């Protein structure tokens, strides 16, 4: 229970479904801010009070679990390390994978609980394939992408009571249930960067290492103050003084951390038709190795599902897109769908 409306309604629905529920707020920062100043970031002390109040109104026990150390190690440090090697990470995936459905789930099970429920928008169905995950009914809010890092064991103990409802109705339901947080704005961006200024946050920690911005021929076009402030496909804010020959816009093509170089090029150069993902995680039955399957690849939270052919071997998933995608950074999550069912995920390590 973050103190937001989704987890509050999720907890209430779990109670209605007949489960014995305990609400837990995760303290993930060792130095939380007092008040929420807007919609960015989570979770402040005020958020923890909102969570407690929701639990009290619903009538369930409430505790705060300190996972600041685990979160820093598993999510924040990973975030910095990925940027330092020129990748663009998605920390929410790591948090679900290592904290919410790992550290929290393990602790809960050791204490005698059966599972963990969250306010994520996704659906769990019991099918002939077992307990599998589907997209939520609200396509605008579907969060199956960030949950695709959960393996079958983790999914066995996971509950998502909001999968069958749209966001507006969640707020109406919260109001009907007397939950004060019905009108609290959703938090967006990265929870541990409350200012929303990711580049600034990284600069404070990784320093400002000045390096060249070059074109595909190696011609120097300008300088950057930290390769981590750039991401593949980025067009704005490149800080280049020399315009391109034909006046076409330039995009970041590559980040080379060893030479601290950012490589830019035109839109065509961003085209990707093949993706390799490493460290594959399966959200249900494992497809046969070295066999081609048809499906959809999604490479961004709320990104378009891309028709593709995929196969896997040795922990890597290989995807051949039907149509090219323009701009994909390594480090992002690659999620494979079979219709609306989540097959599995991997971390993008190469594109072509």
């Amino acid at each position: 229970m973050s103190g937001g409306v989704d987890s509050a309604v999720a907890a209430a629905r779990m109670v209605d479904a007949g489960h014995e529920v305990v609400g837990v707020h995760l303290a993930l920062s060792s130095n939380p801010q007092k008040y929420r100043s807007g919609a960015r970031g989570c979770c402040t002390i005020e958020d923890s009070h909102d969570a407690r109040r929701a639990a009290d109104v619903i009538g369930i026990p409430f505790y705060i679990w300190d996972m600041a150390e685990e979160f820093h190690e598993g999510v924040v440090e990973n975030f910095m390390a990925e940027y330092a090697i020129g990748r663009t990470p998605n920390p929410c995936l790591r948090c679900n994978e290592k904290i919410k459905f790992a550290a929290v789930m393990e602790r809960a099970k050791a204490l005698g609980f059966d599972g963990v429920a969250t306010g994520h928008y996704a659906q769990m169905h019991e099918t002939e394939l077992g307990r599998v995950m589907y997209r939520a009914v609200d396509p605008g809010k579907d969060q199956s992408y960030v949950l695709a890092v959960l393996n079958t064991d983790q999914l066995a103990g996971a509950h998502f009571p909001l999968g069958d409802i749209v966001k507006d109705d969640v707020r109406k339901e919260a109001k009907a249930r007397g939950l004060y947080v019905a009108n609290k704005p959703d938090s967006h961006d990265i929870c541990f960067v409350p200012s929303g200024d990711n580049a600034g946050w990284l600069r404070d920690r990784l320093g400002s290492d000045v390096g060249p911005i070059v074109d595909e021929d190696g011609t120097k076009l300008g300088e950057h103050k930290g390769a981590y402030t750039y991401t593949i496909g980025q067009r704005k804010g490149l800080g280049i003084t020399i315009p391109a020959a034909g006046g076409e816009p330039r995009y970041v093509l590559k980040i080379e951390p060893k030479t601290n170089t950012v490589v830019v090029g035109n839109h065509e150069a961003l085209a990707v038709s093949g993706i390799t993902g490493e460290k594959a995680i399966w959200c249900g039955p494992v497809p046969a190795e070295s066999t081609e399957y048809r499906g959809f690849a999604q490479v961004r939270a709320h990104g378009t599902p891309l028709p593709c052919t995929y196969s896997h071997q040795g922990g890597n998933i290989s995807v051949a897109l039907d149509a090219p995608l323009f701009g994909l950074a390594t480090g992002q999550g690659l999620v494979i769908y079979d219709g609306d069912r989540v097959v599995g995920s991997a971390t993008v390590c190469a594109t072509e």
Partner: protein
Amino acid sequence: MSIYLDHAATVPMVDEAAQALTAQMRIVGNASSLHSDGRAVRKAVEDARMSLADMVGCEPSEIIFTGTGTEADNLAIKGFYWKAVAAHPARTTILSSAIEHHAVKDPIEWLVEHEGATSIEIPVLANGEIDLEFVRNYIAANKDSIALISVMHSNNEIGSVQPIKAIVEMAGDIPVHTDAVQSLGKIDFDFAELGITAATISSHKVGGPLGVAALILKRGLDITPVTHGGGQERDVRSGTFNAPSIVAFAAATRAALSKKDSEFTRIQSLREIAATRILAAIPDATINGVAGLPGILNISFPNTESEALLLLLDSEGISASAGSACSAGVSRPSHVLLALGRTEAEAMSSLRFSLGSTTTQSEIDRLVEVLPSVVERARAAFSVKK
């Protein structure tokens, strides 16, 4: 209803107090008003004041009613400090114990951070009592720089009782304040007999209502007020008299004192039984400190986290507590246990059971029955942490 083993946090309101509160609540009048309505309420307040004074061994005029024990502690620490420094700018040291409650510790820290005070903490010995030699030596070497000495009468976490009289003897002219909120109604406490300058007592710890407490302040001494206004309570603490709660405070104290000795014996013996049986069932558990307060039992359970123990006990309908809760809701190791020489891990695996008026033998039986499996589960949870 749970098995309530958190009497040190607060206790059930006794019937005598609830009755006194309800009766007085129906009577309108501001005790500071000139007219007959006000005077009638004033009389009730002064009757209660006299009754309390008689019970705690002070003059009625030495009682200053406040809203909470925390407020009374803040008034004592800040009031004495500001008064001392105004008269003698070099008197900026506050001598207190390493095991004070946050209501004393935090105002001292605030004065250190904002007003240039120096805080000297008296270490405690293994039994939880302050090191008197330290006090003797410190006062001998620094007599002229000490603004105030504040040492709690008995400790809320480990139950140890402090040698206040001995401190007073060493203090000479230096004012001595004691937070006695855990002592009133449970063990002997007499303001005049101790010879102290100031003391804090609290209503809800003794079976009275929340929202009223008192600073007992030696007559003739005016400290710098924290709250200014209508001039009540010797101009030291302004604010409308909370007549219903004051009246109930006195009634609760009278009720507690009438059974103090028998309850002491009864509760202490239940505590001893609990301690013996818990140590027998969980041999590597250890008791922290030596409790002079009859109901306090503070135990460390190695390789657990107190958070997990409390959650599991809560699910079994048993209410206990651990260490100092802080505003972020995340537990930190108790400074009291750390001062006692425990490691952080030991401090984070400790529970405080505080027995009281509602505690029975069958409740202790249930606690002892449930605790071994609770500890086992908490150990399992502890071992999955990397």
